[in-house]
């Protein structure tokens, strides 16, 4: 900052020698006192001006960005998704897409002119590319002007929220050199013709205003300079008294004394009040441009600039959304003045007068993603003070995928409505939450905290801790399969009545969901069909503490008590915690911290912190491979088979688990494809029964969500670790089978643990075998 050299005002005058009669002396003293007072007042104003102007001038809200959309051949972005993203970014549809922030649709392709954007890892230049699509993905990028196509293009990220200062002032700071020349010229021409000449107060303008007032016999014109207006906005209230006028004039003079015209103008551009959005005050042209036109200041054309300049006079009176006709007249007056004063030509003015206002509908309320923002805030709270998040103008780059978030919100709200109708539940009684993570990096892509996703109330995705029911079962089987000599996926477990006397003398007698017993069942089927009794047997045999340890390795951070009931899900977790668990399963036994933030920059773009990709081996990959296989079977042939109504589950290799709690209070589904981990919880806030099992409730919402995401899904085809062998077994006996056995299944085993003994159906010559082969 190049503040002009400060010139000190003279404080007071040295007192002369007194002593010529008291009345005179009194008058003299009074005069001195008055002068001193005036000087002190001036000095005080001076101090205020300098401290306010030079210190941090504005408390700036932190700006929170979504992930930036990446385009490259093969990117899982369809044409509709791209157009949706462009709409969120405020790109304008314009033939030829000549300017950054515009696009054109040409048949199946989209011609796109991206905006330059500074990311934490460098700057992304503005580029003009043609994007072609095939089968819901990007098929090719082509340089629009010929030449080499870029390998990948990163769009600017959608601004998804802000952390506001407590007084709810908002602005997007701009530098004078970045403000359109036309805006500056228009502003000076309309508001303060003498700006570049005067010293803070313009006597000629005052006289002009006075003359206008006299002719109109009313206060019609202010004659305030931009400097005076800035002082008024900055330091003073809005009452119109003579004393305030005087203060304003003195402060304006002082401001001009200390600072250059450019600094004052820049401050004005950022300070001027230009509108109101509920509690949020819209300050400065930078924000006003986004607020009224949905795009940055640098992309505004003449009619829009004229409208903004016109709004200075009265943002609520000329509000273009509430009073479009008034706003249009005001804009055209401004255009007339600009033409008259030679800022634009008459032809330009005439053309601009015919243009529509170009105002976008009221931008959505600020709390658009309250649940996700909540997660961001909590993760940042470990390193940043709340106050800094609200006032330092930090730029926060998050992992939110707005398109996926919209899909998750739709799936939850529609799913809940359909379930309430279909099951005759009281309308509005059912609540829910959704968490979606990237399976590879652990980035949080979408968080829905309730059935009214815009409502920043109870964030169920993070704070609703509910018993997880059968979602805990994979941990039981992981703990068991670590001992391949004792347990394999083919090991038979008794499904018959079980009673366990607990330490406190009570008897624990788990039952299956359908109250039936099946006799011996292979382990994989016990998990796929979510049988309680065999799970309890396996868990008791391996030991509850081992299961607790496995849960901890999966990523459950909270302390758990090793009671037997834990084996069947008497452990309360939030949807986010469940997602963390299943992320480890999707990651082949590697634990990846869930991240909602990638980086934080200062207002000036300096990197403050980065949240890097980390991973930690947590479980034996071979054991996870076995359990993942059983979870795929759960979706193909077990409790998750309802998903087939929504998705090609076999082709996608979907793995997942239902969860249901006592009296049907909680309905869960957790599952994953190759690239997405998603968890859905449904229940009631008062914890009353909802009458939905995991399969009847949450699974349906999960299916709706994944069906919407289908073109972007990658199949789950886990890398087979070394030391796995596949063997065909007969599920009736758990023994080695061959093609002679009906209903045999091929299962993965940790090498050396597969059954050696042949099932009765295998090996032995069987007259029916060749016959069967003919028909198969």
């Amino acid at each position: 900052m190049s503040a002009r050299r400060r010139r000190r005002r003279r404080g007071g005058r040295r007192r002369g020698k007194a002593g010529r009669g008291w009345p005179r002396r009194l008058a003299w003293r009074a005069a001195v006192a008055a002068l001193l007072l005036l000087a002190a007042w001036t000095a005080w104003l001076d101090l205020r001006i300098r401290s306010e102007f030079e210190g941090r001038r504005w408390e700036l809200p932190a700006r929170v960005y979504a992930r930036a959309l990446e385009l490259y051949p093969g990117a899982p972005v369809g044409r509709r998704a791209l157009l949706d993203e462009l709409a969120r970014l405020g790109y304008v549809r314009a033939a030829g897409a000549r300017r950054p922030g515009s696009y054109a649709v040409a048949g199946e392709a989209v011609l796109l002119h991206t905006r330059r954007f500074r990311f934490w890892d460098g700057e992304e230049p503005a580029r003009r590319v043609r994007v072609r699509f095939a089968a819901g993905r990007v098929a090719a990028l082509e340089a629009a002007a010929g030449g080499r196509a870029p390998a990948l293009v990163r769009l600017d990220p959608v601004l998804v929220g802000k952390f506001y200062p407590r007084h709810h002032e908002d602005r997007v700071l701009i530098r004078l050199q970045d403000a359109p020349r036309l805006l500056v010229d228009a502003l000076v021409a309309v508001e303060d013709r003498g700006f570049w000449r005067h010293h803070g107060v313009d006597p000629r303008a005052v006289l002009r205003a006075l003359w206008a007032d006299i002719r109109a016999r009313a206060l019609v014109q202010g004659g305030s300079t931009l400097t005076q207006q800035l002082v008024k906005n900055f330091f003073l209230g809005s009452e119109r008294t003579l004393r305030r006028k005087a203060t304003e004039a003195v402060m304006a003079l002082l401001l001009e004394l200390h600072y250059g015209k450019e600094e004052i103008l820049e401050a004005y551009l950022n300070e001027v009040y230009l509108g109101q959005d509920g509690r949020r005050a819209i300050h400065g042209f930078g924000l006003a441009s986004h607020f009224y036109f949905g795009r940055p200041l640098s992309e505004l054309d003449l009619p829009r600039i004229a409208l903004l300049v016109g709004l200075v006079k009265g943002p609520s009176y000329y509000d273009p959304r509430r009073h479009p006709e008034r706003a249009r007249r005001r804009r055209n007056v401004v255009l007339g003045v600009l033409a008259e004063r030679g800022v634009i030509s008459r032809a330009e003015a005439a053309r601009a007068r015919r243009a529509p206002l170009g105002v976008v509908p009221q931008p959505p309320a600020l709390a658009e993603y309250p649940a996700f923002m909540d997660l961001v805030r909590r993760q940042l709270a470990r390193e940043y003070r709340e106050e800094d998040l609200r006032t330092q103008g930090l730029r926060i780059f998050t992992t939110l995928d707005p398109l996926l978030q919209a899909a998750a919100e739709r799936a939850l709200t529609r799913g809940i409505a359909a379930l309430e109708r279909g099951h005759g539940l009281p309308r509005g009684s059912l609540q829910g939450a959704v968490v979606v993570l990237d399976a590879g990096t652990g980035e949080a892509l979408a968080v829905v905290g309730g059935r009214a996703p815009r409502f920043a109330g109870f964030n169920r995705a993070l704070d609703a801790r509910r018993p997880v029911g059968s979602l805990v079962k994979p941990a039981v089987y992981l703990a068991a399969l670590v001992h391949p000599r004792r347990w394999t996926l083919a090991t038979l477990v008794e499904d018959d009545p079980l009673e366990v006397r607990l330490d406190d003398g009570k008897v624990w007698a788990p039952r299956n969901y359908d109250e039936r017993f099946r006799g011996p069942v292979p382990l994989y089927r016990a998990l796929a069909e979510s049988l309680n009794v065999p799970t309890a047997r396996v868990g008791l045999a391996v030991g509850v503490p081992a299961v607790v340890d496995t849960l901890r390795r999966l990523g459950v951070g909270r302390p758990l008590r090793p009671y037997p009931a834990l084996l069947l899900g008497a452990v309360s977790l939030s949807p986010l915690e469940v997602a963390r668990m299943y992320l480890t399963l999707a990651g082949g036994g590697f634990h990846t911290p869930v991240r909602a933030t990638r980086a934080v920059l200062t207002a000036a773009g300096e990197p403050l912190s980065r949240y890097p990709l980390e991973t930690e081996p947590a479980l034996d990959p071979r054991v996870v491979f076995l359990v993942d296989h059983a979870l795929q079977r759960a979706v193909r042939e077990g409790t998750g088979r309802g998903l087939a109504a929504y998705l090609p589950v076999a082709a996608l290799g979907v793995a997942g688990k239902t969860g249901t709690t006592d009296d049907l209070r909680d309905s869960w589904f957790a599952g994953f494809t190759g690239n997405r981990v998603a968890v859905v919880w449904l229940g009631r806030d008062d914890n009353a029964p909802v009458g939905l099992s995991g399969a009847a409730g949450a699974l349906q919402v999960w299916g709706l969500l994944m069906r919407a995401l289908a073109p972007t899904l990658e199949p789950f085809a886990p890398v087979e670790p070394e030391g796995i062998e596949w063997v065909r077994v007969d599920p009736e006996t758990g023994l080695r089978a061959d093609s002679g056995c009906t209903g045999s299944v091929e299962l993965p085993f940790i090498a050396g643990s597969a059954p050696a003994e042949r099932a009765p159906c295998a090996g032995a010559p069987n007259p029916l075998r060749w016959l069967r082969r003919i028909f198969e």
Partner: protein
Amino acid sequence: MSVPATLLLPAASLAALAAGCAATGSGPAAPVEGVGPPPVEERAPQPPPAAATPAPRPARGPVLALLDRSRAAERRGDLEAAAAAVERALRIAPRDAALWHRLARIRLGQGMWRRAEALARRSLALAPRDRALGARNWRLIAAARRARGDAAGARAAERRAEALEGMAG
């Protein structure tokens, strides 16, 4: 196929997969997008696909471009930017074992021993049958362990590396 095996590892395994799917034919593997041409040519503009193209798989082009960017940042000495570029590539191809290895190497260069080892392990898990990459991962783990004073662990890792190198040779 005379393609740098380490770089095209996932692509190569894709090719193997495609070959497997193409039944027992003994001819060359069926062409799979992003596998055929060597890396340099892959960045050339691609012709518009025919109308009936199946869903294109993530091509190597963007990943290679990001790797270039990562190496350039590394030469500048900006390891954090180098890591950021690899992370960006991993978002595109999270199962690319070579990328995880590269991130591990950058972390090793930054003195983040534990993080480097964990990333190398992920790389190992994603390509259990790539002996050359496996050996490099174990060497990296050995270096990380030695740096944090775990001499015995380092020796064990070196033995794993040697075993793989022996088999690879």
